């Protein structure tokens, strides 16, 4: 919500996005959180962590766990940089091998 002092953008003088070189295009690209396969964490445990941390229903958590196990990795969440970092932190807290990167 803008404050009363906020500048009002007048119609007609707005720039088109591609004319503004100062815009950091990367900030708009969502971040993805990836969990990698590892030989130690149990399948039931990984599925349980996905359900616990993300509230995923059992079918989705199981599918993600199987993707990790069979394909070597799975994207388990996405969002802003700070939300991705929090998810990575919570996955590390639970001993999963998680990293984050921009979804380019």
């Amino acid at each position, binding site marked *: 919500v803008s404050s009363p002092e906020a500048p009002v953008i007048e119609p007609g003088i707005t720039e088109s996005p591609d004319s503004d070189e100062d815009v950091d295009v990367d900030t708009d690209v969502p971040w993805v959180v990836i969990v990698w396969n590892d*030989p*130690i*964490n*149990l399948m*039931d*445990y990984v599925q*349980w962590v996905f*359900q*616990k941390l993300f509230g995923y229903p*059992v079918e989705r*958590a199981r599918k993600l766990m199987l993707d990790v196990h069979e394909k070597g990795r799975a994207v388990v969440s996405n969002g802003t940089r700070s939300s991705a*970092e929090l998810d*990575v*932190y919570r996955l*590390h*807290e*639970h*001993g999963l*091998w*998680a*990293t*984050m*990167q921009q979804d380019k």
Partner: protein
Amino acid sequence: VLRRIKRTRKGDYAVNITKDERELILHLMPQLRELLLEDDSEAPALRRLFPRAYLDDDKSNDVYRETMHDQLLKTRLEQIETIEHSAMASRLNEDEIQAWIGAINGLRLVMGTWLDVSEDDPDPFDDPDDPEAMALAMYHYLSHLLGELIAAVGP
């Protein structure tokens, strides 16, 4: 199925594991604490417990580590303290069983890294002359216990 660890109607957990198992847990936890407090961030087991957040961005990874490492360490140390205090208990509350899960899995991560386990490892009792047979047996026991804990807690 006769479960050794189960949720009670009161919402806590009844734990019917043996005294030997509880003593094994009490024997192993101080070793996990000692490793966590080691000042060697390059030790493979510590890299496994405190992994990178960014694969190819060292700068962001350093910032992540500076911000998060102490909190991750604190959580792990608190879990060890909780499991040590409740190792002999026949009933666990929700916080305690969550700490058991974290501490037991932390121990598995460390032992699994030391033993360099793979997904296709043979049965640990196949070769009694293997110098690592005892550690492997403990690792597999902890895997079994973790499975029981997860089954009791549920999603």
